[in-house]
């Protein structure tokens, strides 16, 4: 999962430069087939949503649904709540998971199985059970704060984040790299900052993107915890104006994708720059 996002958006859809010549023509066809099927799965619903959001009640094409979004009651609050949750969740997740994964890989590789187990739990435990339990267990001051949701999202994102980091670290031969750096006179900070983290860039980006996507799209937990995040607002506002609600969901999808593309492009330009300069 490590290099998913950078690979995906840029390489997978373009022709990889190192593609052996012989496979090219047949591959192109197959790639098209896969993408068409994927299209049927994803693009048709999105297209339907898009069309619906660009219609007014009379069924005519209109931009009114998009235009009124910012002024709808509650939208701004919901939007900023989601943003804040996303940033807090991401920060907690990275601070918690990066050092842990590196440390486990380096010092206790046998613990990786336990980590595998622990980090898969959020998928295996039904979310409804988790949130009900959390709501009962959390102290009152935390239950009153939307950031309880962040803690829940940290847990929910763990399977993706840990697996991204784990894959990234596994691809590295971390032990040798760290020892090479140490024997060349690097201290721990230099080793981590100049050797480990730069080589985890793809994994970190992948983790970031997945965490953001999860937080910006999550509905169950937020609605059960009674906080009106963006997805909850979309759901609730459907009863008020389905066109506007659908328009918001389209815009939010677009926003998420733009964010992802932006982050990924950061990575690309970063690595291109790295490649250009000979001594950084």
């Amino acid at each position, binding site marked *: 999962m490590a290099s998913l996002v950078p690979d995906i958006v840029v390489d997978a859809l373009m022709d990889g430069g190192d593609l052996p010549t012989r496979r090219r023509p047949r591959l192109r066809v197959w790639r098209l087939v896969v993408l068409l099927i994927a299209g049927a799965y994803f693009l048709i619903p999105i297209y339907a949503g898009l069309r619906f959001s660009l219609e007014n009640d009379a069924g005519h094409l209109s931009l009114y649904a998009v235009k009124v979004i910012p002024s709808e009651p509650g939208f701004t609050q919901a939007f900023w709540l989601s943003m804040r949750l996303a940033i807090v969740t991401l920060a907690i997740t990275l601070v918690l998971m990066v050092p842990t994964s590196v440390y486990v890989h380096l010092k206790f590789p046998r613990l990786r199985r336990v980590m595998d187990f622990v980090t898969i739990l959020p998928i295996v435990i039904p979310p409804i059970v988790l949130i009900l339990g959390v709501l009962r267990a959390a102290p009152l001051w935390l239950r009153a704060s939307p950031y309880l949701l962040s803690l829940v999202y940290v847990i929910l994102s763990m399977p993706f984040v840990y697996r991204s980091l784990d894959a990234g670290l596994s691809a590295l*031969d971390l032990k040798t790299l760290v020892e*090479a750096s140490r024997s*060349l006179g690097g*201290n721990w900070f230099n080793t981590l900052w100049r050797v480990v983290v730069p080589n985890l860039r793809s994994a970190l980006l992948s983790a970031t993107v997945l965490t953001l996507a999860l937080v910006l799209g999550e509905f169950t937990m937020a609605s059960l915890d009674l906080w009106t995040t963006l997805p909850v607002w979309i759901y609730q506002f459907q009863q008020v104006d389905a066109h506007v609600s659908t328009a918001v969901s389209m815009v939010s999808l677009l926003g998420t994708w733009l964010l992802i593309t932006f982050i990924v492009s950061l990575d690309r330009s970063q690595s291109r720059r790295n490649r250009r300069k000979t001594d950084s």
Partner: protein
Amino acid sequence: MTELHDAAPTVSSLTRPTTGARVNLEGLVRTYGLTRALDGFTLAVEPGEFVALLGPSGCGKTTALRVLAGFERLDRGRVTVDGVDVVKVSAQHRDMGMVFQSYSLFPNMNALNNVAFGLRMRHQRALQRRQKAGELLELVGLSDQATKYPHQMSGGQQQRVALARALAIEPRVLLLDEPLSALDAKVRGELRDQIRQLQQRLAITTVFVTHDQEEALSMADRVCVMSNGRAEQTATPAVLYSRPTTPFVAEFVGVSSRVPVTPLDGEVELFGQRCRVRSGSVGVTVDGVDALLRPEDLTVTADPSALPFVTHKSFLGATTRLVVQVDEVPIRVDLRSDVAADIELGARVRPAVVARDVLVAPRAPRRESTTD
């Protein structure tokens, strides 16, 4: 193979032999649970010397190297470099360049920045370190690869950059942890020559870990054969090959055929011929010894009336190796290829000893045919 042509770079201090450090490992002990990886290992390396640690896997050779590098804790023993105890010094401050078995280049840096990394950690200026790194790349013949990233280079090139990187910090000791074992036969041979050449030119104290005896014998000034965490014998390749002092070394180094013999007055009878027992032969006991015969110690002549016959014949280039069945015992014999050309598979031959004397060792229990 033409890297031997390399003109030495016309630059700076690199080609001037520096004085290497003297390394002493004394009574090293390292225990993992119940296993003793090192069990009183002792080795003295002279300044500028190239010493190979040779042994089967699990003999402790890599642990010894890692103790010297500072990556492995020591239970007991002393490690001194130029007389100074370094046991408490962290790897970061030991000033030892290390080349690893697997490709240890930093994937996020190109060749030049990899080589310059150690200099950067020593806070050298960008210009200075770039120049020095460039010189080192030139030294290993990779000037044209400076801007290539590790994934764009072949395995052999990567290991040469790793070598340049280790040398860039002008280490007091160069540590090589099976640097050739992941490479192709051809590249391996070439890099072997290059490493040896550079080591001699720079006169840098070097410890080389390998399980490949050919590598150890052909490259090192002295070879230390290890087994069970201890040094069995430390000697020059020639001495190790012809005068092993322990049964383990006799068995482990070189290819030998074992023939049961009965020693009498410092002589043994082999193929109807009386041969002197080599002085220094080990463990000549009463109840059974074997002569250890190198393929080049023997010759054969065609003789239709003889009982021994040729069961295998394989061409090795200058020589051809025959396996001759003598009384149920297979004996390996190397002949010059033009001589061997006349001897067919299955031919009856008479073996003879051509060496001045033969090595004798306690009889080994017959090993099972499972080769590993």
